[in-house]
């Protein structure tokens, strides 16, 4: 049974991965002993462990389902799920939606369970040895929560499929547990999960990390060394050789100081061979006990490597969630020009920093709940054949709506770049050396929108005029006419379409000036199975690389002529000069630069 089976029977499975010790009570190396280390055996979880030094972490997966008939035995699912509701990941390509972070919004899930008596089978390896009947003591969730207080951040999955379908073949979305509440007076328990990128929230992840060291004594504005005390770890102030630039950077008050030497002695760290008033700041004297904050510097670094560094090293997101080979393949082709240089002198939210670079370097990252990885995609023409959607075979009746967000329309993009003083305000125009302005004068004419709408970008990352021009042009191209949204629902048979994908849509209300149907290209900015296994709701945003456009690519020396080229070469991997009238030899439209 699958999406295409008439009378398909949708099922929703919820899986939790709880911590579970892989040892047996009292079995080496576990030294627990009944009556000595505790009055009863543990439950193979840390909270009840009697030999924490030898606690050996493993995972126990618990599976739950909605209560319905004919769930297969081998699923071994507890049928206590009452409801599953989700808020999908929403991407914000180019940061065009001012109401959203440039990083978009995080996927969330909320699962409600009905609590119930439980035999403790599977969750208590020693249930047969207990001196009580588990079914008559507590409930599943009261016992589970008492034994598993450390559940935050553990993985959970929502599998949506059909009876007779193997769980691993179902559409599966991955989350981490944020909190578990309940049971309430009605025996309801709620688990809230969120996507892994929530670890980048400012409350959880900052870059650079805060450093608490203080000046041991007053220093003058010309001092060539300084001594730090009351730090947490000597690793807080790494040696110069640990930095790609060969020197470290700290901030004291409003002064940035570079150091080329570091020594650690008797609980004191001495930074010496200093460059005072570095990076556009002013040298100043400082007092004992002033905070010494380590700075984060990137110099000419590929922006996708910066994104990975922020995610892995500052948000502590496991590398397994970052398919960096895929990132590189995408970035090498589409983001090669975006090397960035910046100095961040005080702790800032990783999410904010990621938002800045995704907006200013024209890419986006998002948590793909289905593939359980953080994807990266440049704002670029589709290289895959877009999914074709029409109102005959795909779009569900009465399920769609179109909307235009005029607030997102822009006619000018001002890009400020090359920051003067990284200790000063980020959105102060005078704090930048360069400004690049791109104006769509036609759009501002009285016959058209008759309005000037400016988007300002203050970039501490961009380092060249070419980058600034590119960002301005792309943003203006995409939001020249505002953001055009389309919301629609598809039957589950079409649910392969997912966030970040591009689709060409034919709908009776999308027509050209003659009233003829006009195929319109959109990008999926969010997708949600509103009726699991039955109906998927999509939010789509107009895509700047339109259906009718052809985009130019540089070719190799052995490239064929237009007439000799294959259709694939003509459409996706090549470009050819048009004639003076912008026409190709076969009369088709010429190519565009991107």
């Amino acid at each position, binding site marked *: 049974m699958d*999406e*295409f089976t*008439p*009378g*398909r*029977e*949708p099922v929703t499975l919820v899986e939790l991965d709880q911590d579970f010790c892989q040892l047996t009570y009292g079995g080496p190396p576990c030294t627990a002993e009944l009556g000595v280390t505790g009055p009863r055996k543990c439950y193979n979880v840390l909270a009840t462990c009697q030999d924490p030094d030898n606690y050996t972490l493993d995972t126990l997966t618990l599976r739950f*389902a909605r*209560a*319905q*008939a*004919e*769930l*297969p*035995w081998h699923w*071994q*699912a*507890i*049928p*206590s799920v009452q409801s599953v509701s989700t808020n999908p990941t929403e991407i914000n390509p180019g940061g065009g939606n001012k109401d959203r972070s440039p990083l978009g919004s995080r996927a969330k899930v909320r699962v409600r369970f*009905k*609590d*119930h*008596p439980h*035999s403790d*089978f599977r969750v208590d390896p020693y*249930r*047969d040895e207990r001196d009580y009947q588990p*079914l*008559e*003591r*507590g*409930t599943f969730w009261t016992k589970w929560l008492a034994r598993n207080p450390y559940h935050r951040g553990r993985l959970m999955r929502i599998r949506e499929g059909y009876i007779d379908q193997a769980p691993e073949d179902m559409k599966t979305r991955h989350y981490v547990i944020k909190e578990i509440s309940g049971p309430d007076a009605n*025996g309801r328990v709620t688990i809230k999960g969120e996507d892994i990128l929530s670890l980048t929230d400012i409350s959880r992840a900052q870059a650079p990390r805060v450093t608490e060291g203080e000046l041991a004594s007053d220093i003058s504005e010309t001092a060539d060394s300084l001594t730090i005390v009351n730090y947490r770890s000597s690793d807080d102030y790494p040696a110069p050789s640990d930095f790609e630039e060969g020197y470290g950077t700290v901030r004291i008050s409003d002064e940035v100081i570079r150091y080329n030497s570091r020594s650690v002695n008797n609980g004191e760290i001495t930074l010496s061979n200093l460059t005072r008033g570095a990076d556009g700041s002013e040298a100043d004297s400082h007092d004992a006990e002033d905070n010494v904050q380590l700075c984060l510097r990137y110099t000419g670094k590929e922006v996708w490597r910066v994104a990975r560094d922020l995610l892995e090293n500052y948000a502590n997101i496991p590398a397994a969630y970052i398919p960096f080979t895929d990132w590189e393949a995408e970035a090498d082709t589409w983001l090669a020009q975006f090397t960035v240089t910046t100095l961040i002198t005080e702790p800032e939210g990783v999410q904010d920093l990621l938002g800045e670079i995704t907006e200013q370097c024209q890419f986006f990252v998002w948590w793909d709940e289905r593939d359980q990885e953080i994807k990266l995609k440049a704002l670029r023409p589709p290289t895959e054949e877009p999914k074709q959607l029409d*109102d*005959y*075979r*795909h*779009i*569900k*009746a*009465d*399920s*769609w709506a179109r909307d235009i967000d005029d607030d997102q329309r822009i006619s000018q993009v001002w890009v400020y770049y090359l920051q003067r003083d990284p200790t000063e305000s980020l959105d102060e125009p005078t704090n930048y050396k360069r400004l690049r302005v791109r104006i769509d004068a036609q759009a501002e004419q009285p016959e058209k929108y008759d309005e000037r709408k400016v988007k300002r970008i203050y970039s501490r990352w961009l380092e060249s005029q070419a980058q600034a021009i590119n960002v301005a042009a792309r943003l203006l191209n995409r939001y020249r006419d505002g953001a055009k949204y389309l919301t629609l629902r598809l*039957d*589950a*048979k079409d649910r392969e379409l997912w966030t970040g994908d591009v689709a060409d849509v034919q*709908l*009776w209300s999308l027509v050209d000036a003659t009233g003829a149907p006009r195929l319109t290209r959109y990008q999926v900015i969010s997708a949600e199975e509103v*009726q699991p*296994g*039955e*109906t998927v709701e999509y939010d789509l945003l107009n895509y700047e690389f339109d259906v009718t456009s052809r985009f130019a690519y540089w070719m190799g020396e052995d490239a064929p002529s237009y007439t000799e080229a294959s259709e694939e070469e003509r459409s996706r991997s090549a470009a050819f000069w048009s004639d003076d009238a912008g026409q190709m030899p076969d009369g088709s439209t010429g190519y565009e630069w991107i």
Partner: protein
Amino acid sequence: MTVILSDGYLDNGIDGIAPWKSRILYDQIARRDDATVSASSTDSDEAYVDAPVSDQTWEWWRAASQPATWTVTTGSGVTVSAVGIAAHDIGSQGATVEVQRNGVTLLSHTPSDDAPIIFLFEPVNDTSFSIRLSGGDAPPRVGVCYIGQALSMIRPVQWSGHTPSRFNVNLTKRASTSERGQRLGTSIIREGFSVDFNVENLPEEWVRQEFEPFIRSAWRYGYFIAWRPMDFPEDADFTWSDEPIVPDNSGPGLPPRKGGDANGGRRMSVSWSARVYGGHVTGIPPWGAL
């Protein structure tokens, strides 16, 4: 859904009540304080031995090897006239199930499906009752097994207006069509079955003595029911009631008359609804410690 009847039951019924009248199995000797549950073996990867007593349809006992025996032993003799088995896959495994008293087979059955089975037989008194499973592809799973005395309804379930559970499926069906009217897909969600019972003209004294223990048991536990075991042996259900079963007085309420009906005009009627187990896992039963 199958009712297996012994010859003696067919000849005489139980408790002198005609064999075609409804039987309810709510009694469970395994819940007695002096009862112990054991098995010839248990596949501990997915099963535990006392699962069939837990009243939960989503956990089960399964032997590690065949033939397999699951036994309830009591400290003193108990009377048993019925065995109910639900949430099993004996039919799927092609196995045979036998009801045994102290190792002696009373009845056996090789089901063709995994529907609930109710064995009804003349009451026997003993300290050990078992189900024995043999044959088939692999050891079957048994989620619910009741062993006890069946309640024989002194009056039949009203024929008129009764919908056998097999026809009363709780099914949600949703079909979707495209904007231009094409049929896109159809989904169904089955949540088991339900059934309503109506029994009238019950002697008030019988209700208090025989039926009330069942009412109280149904507050917490499930029960097997065969509404017409002889006429419709295929209508054997494992059910539970979300709401308490509440009988009403009926009739004129006159006191018993000498030489007449012992209950006189004191009659009671009872109607109740039940959710019917409709295949492996239909829900968290409403009873238990909550």
